[in-house]
């Protein structure tokens, strides 16, 4: 399999430049929505919900919001964003005529998607900290974990993007995969509220280990399952990243 080179950073820089040129159209949405969810669900719904695991409801969902909105940032970037660049703008075609390879382009897209995840996760972490919802210094590791989670979701999304015929195919990805994951990965309620089988199955969804790990770092309650969650995320990147590079080559080098 062909691998990427350091030149992928050029694609990352291109995406960064475009983002910061247009940040005023992206950033407010990226911050406002998780804020609204956090406050509405946390304070609104939280008023009717008893203590979860000994904390307040808003404390429970804050790490879930960090993880899931990080996921959304990477997913949107590497589905609609990547597809438009690839198919409509022919940006990839232009770049692969330079010394960059298709693997460099794909890796640049994935790392940029992961960066978006880390940016979003960190921003929500800061907001959550401002509301005094973060109690452990372990939370300083959250940007790195958001980046790792971002790599998982960006690789997965680029892989899906590389095989679909049209932009409408993303409907399946979101309604059958991303949205269910948002509700079954322990963001809004502990997995223990599900029957045993569902609990086990939910660990197949990559958001589950990410939420679990983020929550552990926010609360500072360390245990062995956190390492397992970390291991799952690393394993997913190790598998999905090279597959998405190869799949993009298959699609574009025709």
């Amino acid at each position: 399999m062909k691998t990427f080179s350091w030149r992928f950073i050029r694609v990352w820089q291109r995406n960064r430049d475009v983002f910061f040129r247009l940040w005023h159209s992206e950033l407010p949405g990226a911050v406002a929505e998780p804020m609204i969810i956090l406050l509405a669900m946390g304070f609104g719904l939280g008023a009717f919900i008893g203590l979860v695991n000994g904390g307040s409801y808003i404390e429970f969902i804050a790490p879930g919001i960090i993880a899931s909105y990080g996921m959304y940032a990477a997913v949107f970037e590497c589905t609609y964003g990547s597809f438009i660049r690839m198919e409509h703008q022919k940006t990839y075609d232009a770049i692969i005529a330079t010394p960059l390879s298709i693997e460099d382009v794909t890796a640049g897209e994935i790392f940029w998607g992961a960066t978006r995840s880390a940016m979003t996760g960190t921003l929500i972490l800061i907001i959550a900290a401002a509301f005094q919802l973060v109690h452990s210094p372990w939370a300083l590791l959250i940007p790195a974990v958001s980046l790792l989670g971002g790599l998982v979701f960006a690789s997965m999304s680029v892989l899906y993007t590389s095989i679909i015929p049209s932009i409408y195919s993303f409907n399946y990805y979101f309604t059958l995969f991303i949205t269910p994951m948002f509700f079954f990965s322990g963001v809004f309620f502990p997995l223990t509220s599900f029957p045993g089988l569902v609990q086990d199955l939910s660990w197949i969804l990559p958001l589950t280990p990410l939420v679990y790990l983020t929550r552990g770092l926010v609360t500072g309650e360390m245990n062995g399952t956190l390492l397992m969650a970390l291991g799952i995320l690393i394993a997913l990147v190790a598998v999905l990243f090279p597959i998405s590079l190869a799949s993009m080559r298959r699609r574009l080098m025709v």
Partner: protein
Amino acid sequence: MPIIKTEHLTKKFKDLVAVNDVSLEVEDGECFGLLGVNGAGKTSLIRMLTAVSPPTEGKIWVLGKDLEKHSREIKAALGVVPQVNNLDPDLTVLQNLMTFARYFAIPRDEARKRSMELLKAFELESKLRSRIDELSGGMKRRLLIARGLLNMPRILILDEPTVGLDPQAKYMMWNKLTEQKSGGVTLILCTQNMEEAATLCDRVAIMHQGRVITLDAPRTLVQKYIGKEIFEIEVEPAKREEMVGELKKRGLEFEALLGRIHVFHIEPDGAKGPLRDLPGTIRSRAASLEDVFLRLTGRSLVE
């Protein structure tokens, strides 16, 4: 040593053979033309030469190196102007060039200098900060060509670069390409404009259904396939069969097109020599590359 060499190059898309067993050599410093009807396989060939499309069969050497193994290094020495606009619409005119320069690892200051020079040369200075969709079609085309020159390529590969340009811009472009050539750059020019090919190219290859059917200097091709002059007989549809029969009987080389018949290689003496006493209007004019093209790729109606 040829600067580009292909051997038995073939490109298939499922059952469709877009490029069929093409072996050719492009000399260092020449302008090499690529002609052919729509769908002949020109773009497919060029995409293989620029390492963005892997050959189904065959081999390519560029600058003496195997393209498959040294694609990065070779791509760094190529300037590519694609048929389809792929400027970056998320960036301004200047940012397009600066970002592209980064793909070639050109240092920032140098990139800025070259970008400004190119924008000036291609009369796009006033559009520096415009978004791409604010440019006219011809301006986009000009920017696309400017972008192809950013890395000071050894080989410049252009797929229909002057489509949609006004006459001024077209002559400006011909001028620029001639300049590049005198600077030692090898040009590969794919075009539908026969005048352009005849003016700029040292040699042209005519492609048909994926094959190179002829390859030579434009003038030589005209001499070989048409002669000095071409004779055009205008003929009514009803009389057409009869006329074709008569021309065959006289053993002449001709091509029957819609509404008219072209006759080649005639040395006129007396009253139009071998064409004397034919019904219909007969005109003659200087032969051109376009006549060669039509003869070789013509959708001829009779054998």
